[in-house]
């Protein structure tokens, strides 16, 4: 059973068997507005937690996406190349960005669960 975590930078990571699927949250897509392009990392890239690993381009602006954990990129969402609007339609599902093989599970402890993240964004409004 996958377990989902959230970062203060509005990324989510759903972890199962040492691999995390990462995207931006529903709240983030709502704030960004219509997404027109997503720049994804290369498969095989090794990244550190907090690296800017992807860029979301909305109609208005470009926003960086930071990796919530360290590890190796094992898959990217190729669908986003032709259908970046998936991020708006289903940010926490079909609109995922990449999958990462975690190098340090303990990093997950510093992320929020869904309830805490809901409280966190409540505090931003």
């Amino acid at each position: 059973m996958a377990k989902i975590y959230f970062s203060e930078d509005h990324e989510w990571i759903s972890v199962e068997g040492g691999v995390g699927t990462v995207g931006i949250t529903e709240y983030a897509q709502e704030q960004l507005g219509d997404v027109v392009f997503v720049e994804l990392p290369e498969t095989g890239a090794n990244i550190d937690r907090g690296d800017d690993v992807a860029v979301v381009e909305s109609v208005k602006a470009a926003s960086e996406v930071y990796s919530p954990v360290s590890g190796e990129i094992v898959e990217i969402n190729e669908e986003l190349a032709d259908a970046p609007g998936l991020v708006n339609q289903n940010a926490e599902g079909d609109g995922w960005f990449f999958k990462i093989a975690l190098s340090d599970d303990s990093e997950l402890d510093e992320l929020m669960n869904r309830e805490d993240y809901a409280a966190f964004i409540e505090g931003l409004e």
Partner: protein
Amino acid sequence: MGEIHPETLLTTPLDGLHRELGARMVPFAGYAMPVQYKGGILAEHAQTRTHAGLFDVSHMGQAEVRHPDGVAAAARAFEALVPGELQALKQGQIRYTLFTNAAGGILDDLMVTNAGDRLYVVVNAACKAQDFAHMQANLAGCELTILEDRALLAIQGPEAAKVIARLAPEAADMPFMTAKAFALGGIPVWASRSGYTGEDGYEISVASAEAEALARLLLAEPEVEAAGLGARDSLRLEAGLCLYGSDIDTATTPIEAGLKWVIGKRRREEGGFPGAETILTQLAEGAGRSRVGLRLEGRQPARAHSEIVDADGNVIGEVTSGGWGPTVEAAVAMGYVKSAFAQPGTAVGCLVRGKALKAEVVPMPFAPHRYFKG
């Protein structure tokens, strides 16, 4: 995302309506303005290209210029500040023109209408205080009236004319770049057949007190939806229209900006406007750099300040506006390049986060203008 500080931002007469419609408000030129409503920028852009969008542009500056000897004298005085041929304007005709400075740079772009007994002028929100001071100081013998109590609404799109004709049949046959007074649902307006989207449409000046009633009247028509500044920007970009402060400013001349058509024939011969020497020399000999349209190969946008490079990676210019063009379904941009690279078909690159995105110089507009020529 910008913080909204309502205590320091001005509001337009439609502020309450925007909030009621679920607008996301952002600071723009000192005003709280709707960047988008609930549908989002892409939907509002498409709505305007296929039906009609209603934009609040009340933040723009509206003014009237009178001269004791009549409108011809006001036009003559105004020509001292702009390269446009204003004396030739017939009653109801509008001209797009530019305030230039002594170096040939652009202080603002504006619309000037011969309104019969006066000139009616619309300038950019961000420049209006400076423009009005410039006019006050330099329009010899004229009386300037700043229209503080008027709102400005733009209805834009292929179905805009149908909507306006339903409410005011006499407005249907107004050609592009003409203006007149009529009433919409009993509300007196001064309306121009003009806009900033490349589509047919009207820009409607109305008393602030009646602006919300007029907006509601127009929004009640089935063809019309509210559209915000986000869509306004993507629409004008596709239409190849300059945004003051981004694509033109005091460091660009009308010739560099590809706006030589704003310089009237008589003005080319006579000069007599600020910066005429520089501008007319560039008109004759060409300028070192030129504003061009760029179409990118992929979907990734190149935005303002992205450097433009040649095939060898040498920097040849800079993007001044860029983004996703929803109607042309391509990433498009405009910017300045050394004039040797301004020919359509020239292959260039736009540097985005260190990577050169492939692009081609193309003619503008990206989306064809669909003005009503009568």
